[in-house]
């Protein structure tokens, strides 16, 4: 499919869906929408998504390999259909005998992980930079994207919230806070074409800053979803609407911000551990002080660097097998995040989860920049991975593992353009030293205070 049309993006669009799309896009306080997107679901796929949602709603979660009834058939399938595993699968059906994989394997050749028997006609991609800064296009499909909501709903129900938004209402407002952000409006056919809007709270996308609150009030979304950086910005915007739930994904939600959000919006704040590679994996529950697993067909192992379980009570790498993305079946995929896996009251919980920390980097003029914008600024450079550490005085330590054709001067110039002539000390790594902790800041308010640029 080349240059999709409006009909390609919204097959089977209802009259009330079309009306809602128009209202979201043309509201007087609407931001600049820079892009187009849609659910792309065909009518029979809408039913399949509803059925999937019902299965996820009722299913037991069993993350241990020896108790996962679906696992043998899954391993047989990847061994036969996935080019990478045709070469690397062991003779054994014992998951523990299979090698682990990582983002580096995907980066080397993502095509080798797509099963041979899947059609490529409607492949979509999810672009991810990950915490190593290595940009990557992950294969997916409209049905896979639509399945996300099933897992969110499972998490919401556990937190006591049932979604009800439907015809004529806005189901979700996705918020970003980036200088450059993919923004659009859409509808959700498996919820009677309720609305979805993805907006950027950054001032660059608004005619007037006060429009941000007016627009949120006008849309009155049932869910507002974003990363901790954009949710922190939300705190500074004046509006009356109270969503039923705030969803935080992408980065670790720190307790201070959670409490501030709960206090301001008087609603449930769901913190979902989610990766582009695997979708929503687990949701935080205060009662168990950990992230409760969400996917019935996902084996979760905690492994040390030698593929062995760490000592009792010790955290290890979160390693995943299975998942719901047919186009990217995971086998012992090392997420790069660490946690313990514990059983609490018969249910499985990730505890002490350490994922990606949200960090804002202070520019020379005192304003702050989202780390995503820095990643974007360097995204097309031949960099294997990098880290940026801001000292208390604002100076920056930039560590980079270069790729072929890397130009340090160009890289520093790019950093200076987004950061405004910062003092940068650069260090080159000529061999991999493992996953770098990509962004760090010693500036106290790099996590807590909302910026206005």
């Amino acid at each position, binding site marked *: 499919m080349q240059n999709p049309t409006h009909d390609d993006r919204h097959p089977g669009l209802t009259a009330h869906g079309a009306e809602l799309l128009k209202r979201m896009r043309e509201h007087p306080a609407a931001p600049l929408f820079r892009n187009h997107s*849609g659910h792309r679901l065909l009518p029979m796929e809408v039913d399949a998504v509803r059925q999937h949602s019902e299965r996820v709603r009722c299913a037991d979660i069993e993350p241990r390999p020896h108790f996962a009834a679906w696992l043998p058939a899954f391993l047989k399938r990847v061994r036969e259909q996935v080019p990478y595993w045709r070469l690397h699968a062991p003779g054994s059906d014992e998951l523990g005998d299979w090698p682990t994989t990582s983002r580096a394997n995907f980066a080397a050749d993502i*095509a080798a992980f797509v099963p041979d028997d899947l059609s490529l006609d409607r492949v*979509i*991609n999810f672009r991810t930079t990950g915490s190593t800064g290595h940009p990557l296009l992950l294969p997916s499909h409209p049905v896979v*994207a639509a399945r996300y909501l099933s897992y969110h709903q499972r998490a919401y129900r556990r937190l006591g919230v049932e979604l009800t938004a439907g015809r004529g209402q806005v*189901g979700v407002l996705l918020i*970003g806070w980036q200088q450059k952000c993919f923004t659009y409006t859409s509808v959700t056919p498996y919820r009677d074409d309720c609305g*979805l809007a993805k907006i950027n709270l950054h001032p660059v996308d608004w005619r007037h800053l006060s429009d941000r609150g007016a627009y949120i009030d006008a849309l009155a979304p049932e869910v507002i979803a974003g990363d901790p950086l954009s949710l922190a910005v939300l705190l500074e915007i004046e509006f009356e609407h109270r969503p039923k739930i705030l969803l935080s994904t992408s980065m670790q939600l720190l307790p201070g911000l959670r409490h501030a959000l709960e206090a301001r919006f008087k609603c449930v704040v769901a913190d979902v551990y989610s*990766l*582009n590679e695997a979708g929503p994996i687990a949701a935080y529950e205060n009662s168990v002080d950990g992230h409760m697993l969400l996917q019935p067909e996902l084996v979760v192992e905690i492994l040390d660097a030698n593929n062995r379980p760490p000592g009792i009570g010790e955290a290890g790498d979160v390693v995943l097998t299975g998942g719901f993305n047919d186009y990217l079946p995971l086998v012992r995929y090392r997420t790069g995040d660490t946690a313990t896996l514990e059983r609490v009251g018969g249910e499985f919980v990730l505890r002490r989860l350490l994922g990606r920390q949200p960090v804002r980097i202070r520019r020379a003029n005192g304003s702050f920049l989202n780390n995503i914008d820095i990643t974007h600024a360097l995204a097309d450079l031949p960099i294997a991975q990098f880290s940026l550490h801001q000292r208390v005085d604002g100076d920056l330590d930039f560590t980079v593992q270069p790729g072929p054709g890397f130009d340090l001067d160009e890289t520093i110039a790019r950093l200076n353009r987004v950061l405004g002539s910062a003092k940068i000390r650069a260090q080159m790594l000529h061999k991999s030293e493992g996953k770098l902790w990509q962004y760090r800041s010693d500036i106290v308010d790099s996590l807590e205070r909302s910026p206005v640029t």
Partner: protein
Amino acid sequence: MDIEGAPLPLLTRRIAEAPADFLAMPRIGAAGLVHVDAIARDVLSSRGIDVPITALAALSSPISPREHPRLALLICWLLVEPQLQWPNDPNALLALLLIRARELAVHLSAEAVIADDERREELARLTLMALGQRPAGESLVQARDRWLAVSTMERARLVDASRAAEQRARAIREALARKAAEESADKWSRE
């Protein structure tokens, strides 16, 4: 390959010593000398397998690969080796003469089989495999490994598979890079 059959050297030597009549040009239409279909029928009949001549028509057909009847003729010579055990299933023999020989003919000539040690081994192993046997004294694993090492067809299959895999990988990369893919599709969250 479940059971041990004749020794490999016996079969390769027999191929090397094929009489001139079994290397003559097959009769196709008005050209050629040897009626391969008739010889094949006689060979099968010698061990009590009677098939109509029309079932062997591919061995005299102008649309068959040129080397097909010639390789089938060499296989007939091999099949009359007294130490070679035949299975009860006549379909296995027909498949050998009509299908396996045809597949081999795409990659190999009768001259190459006579002239080259490894190609003789390939034809001998192919014949044994078609009869459900492996060379005497070899384990199943040894027989499989050796077949993969000498098989022209297997090599060609691997090249084809490799080419197909590369085409598929290119198609995936192109599909991911398309503007349509870039636009993505709705998720109720972002990572």
